[in-house]
């Protein structure tokens, strides 16, 4: 159980501002911790991981980032309160937070040195027993002009302009059967010309009129995640690539499709990935998401 209590300073400020303020309006800081993993092992750039997918292949990741939004805390009675994210001008904007597990080293050279494994915010004081969030960027923020969007919605690695919007989840890997770069390799390293990538985002977002931005996406591909027993003080939300890829063959790519699964309809590499992300795909019903778990 997470006990959220106002710090002395906040309480004093609240008292100074209004001595009759009811205690329910007092807020306190909350930090949700995330951890990247591959089949239970800690995610690290430069590390290779064995036993991935149906071929039990070795993969070498080169990127791993995701957007979390609409974070809510679950009270003991099942009611929820939104977590008001800190507007830090770097990782969080309005209700969206970027989680960035890569550190720009080794095969992650396309990435950034800075890592981010927490979501921080404030919630009304209280006892919370669970957490809910969405993997994705809310529609209202997903289709603006990214060149003037505030950070972190201006991180180009998460741009998805050819589809309109952002990647919600991005991980790239090279595998035993598909090294991450093809000849001639980019002399600066990185890249994922082949390999097995998972880029999740909304698809089929055409607008009814050419003058208007998209009004909806046929495949929003937003993943709702709920852990109704979660203690933010003691526990960590683990995001595990290996579990997403468990039913995939990462050593092959269906010809004439994007490397791995980039959410495009009719990609034979996608059904096992989308099922494990808890999403419907091309008529197949949604499975249970296994990317996130609590440890």
């Amino acid at each position, binding site marked *: 159980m997470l006990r959220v209590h106002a710090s002395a300073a906040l309480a004093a400020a609240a008292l100074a501002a209004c001595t009759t303020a009811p205690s329910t309006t007092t807020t306190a800081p909350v930090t949700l911790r995330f951890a990247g993993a591959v089949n239970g092992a800690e995610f690290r750039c430069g590390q290779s991981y064995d036993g991935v997918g149906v071929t039990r292949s070795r993969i070498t990741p080169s990127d791993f980032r995701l957007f979390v939004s609409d974070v809510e805390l679950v009270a003991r009675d099942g009611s929820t309160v939104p977590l008001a994210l800190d*507007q830090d*001008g770097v990782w969080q904007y309005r209700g969206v937070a970027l989680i960035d597990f890569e550190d720009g080293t080794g095969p992650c050279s*396309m*990435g*950034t040195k800075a890592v981010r494994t927490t979501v921080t915010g404030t919630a009304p004081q209280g006892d919370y027993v669970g957490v809910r969030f969405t993997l994705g960027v809310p529609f209202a923020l997903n*289709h*603006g*002009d*990214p*060149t*003037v*969007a*505030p950070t972190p919605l*201006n*991180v*180009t*690695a998460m*741009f998805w*302009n*050819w*589809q*309109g919007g952002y990647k919600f989840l991005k991980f790239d890997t090279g595998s035993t059967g598909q090294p991450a*770069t*093809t*000849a*001639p*390799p*980019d*002399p*600066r390293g990185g*890249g*994922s*010309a*082949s390999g097995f*990538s998972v*880029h999740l985002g909304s*698809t*089929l*977002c*055409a*607008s009814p009129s*050419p*003058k*208007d*931005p*998209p009004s909806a996406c*046929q*495949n929003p591909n937003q993943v709702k995640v709920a852990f109704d027993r979660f203690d933010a003080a003691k526990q960590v939300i683990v995001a595990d690539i290996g579990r997403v890829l468990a039913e995939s063959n990462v050593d092959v790519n269906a010809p*004439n*499709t*994007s*490397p791995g699964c*980039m959410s*495009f*309809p*009719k990609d034979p590499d996608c059904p096992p990935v989308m099922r494990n992300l808890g999403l419907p795909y091309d008529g197949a019903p949604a499975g249970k998401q296994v990317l996130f778990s609590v440890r």
Partner: protein
Amino acid sequence: MRAGATAARVTAIVAVASLALGLLTGAGGGFEWRLPAWVPLPVVPADNPMSAEKVNLGRHLFYDTRLSADGSMSCATCHRQALAFTDGRAVAPGVDGTDGVRSAMPLANVAYLPVLTWANPNLRTLEVQALVPMFGEHPREMGIAGREQELFARLRADARYPSMFRAAFPDQHGEISLATITRALAAFERTLLSFDSPYDRYRYGGQPEAISAAAKRGEALFFGEKLECYHCHSGFNFTDNQQHARLAHPEIGYHNNGLYNVDGRGGFPPDNPGLREVTGRAEDEGKFRTPSLRNVALTAPYMHDGSVPTLRAVLAHYAAGGRTVTTGPHRGAGARNPNKSPLVAGFELSEDEIGDLIAFLESLTDDRFVTDPRFSDPFAKGSPTPTR
């Protein structure tokens, strides 16, 4: 401190909101377009007014290989002036050597297009479209996703750029950012105006002898009901996609011209499904945006995948009412594609008529456009070369 931060955030939200409205104006402010009197003004996004300084900056950026991950590619790598800003290839490799899937489109008069690229109705402005080759990862073209800070540093380190950015974006204090880079590129692209072909001089310029008798016969065929070319290749840019200052509503046209039918049910090769890739509608399979025919003699090979090598082969394709592929994974009778435009019905052409049509299409070549120094590489020999 806190109040200041809040104000900055509000400003950012207002900026995003005003852009999201997509306000467009026909005015280019005081910008001198240098257009013939008969040509309407292009439509310019309200948040990116034209200026000579911005166009100059955009021209430099368009030709600058620092916009790619390894310094090997600029916009001009695939958009070469001599080829009316195409590259002569079916598809082009990106920085890691992997081929793209669609052919580089010509850029003449892109200022008049309401939607851009072959089949993405969500790409409505050149500002946003510029992000695709720079940051796209499937296919990876210029490959700088995740490296924008490196790009800004490279540009700042060139003594010429900071002053060019200040001149182009005085209100932004010369900020070097994605917003300013893409806006400068778009402003330059809007000046790539081609209205001085022999056909323009013949049709609009009061010079009845500017094109040959053969080209005039070809013109009659092109605009005739036997061939039906002009239904899609209509208007002053020879495409049914247009917006301009004198047009109330933009016109948009995507068509299936019977290029493939891989499964007998209208299927196109899976890496190029056309408009369906974005709309998800089955009837949009194989539909692509009608390209302009200006300078078409210079823009071979043709079609979205560059699979038709010559103008003569294009005419054969339309004469047959679609293409039949006899071998390989793409085999199928395109003429029997159920999604095919009814206007691609087929026709018979004599050898003389083929020659006449090609003469007409060649009369759309604007030699001044493809040699105009204003559109040329500012880093080429004779111009001061920046440190690379």
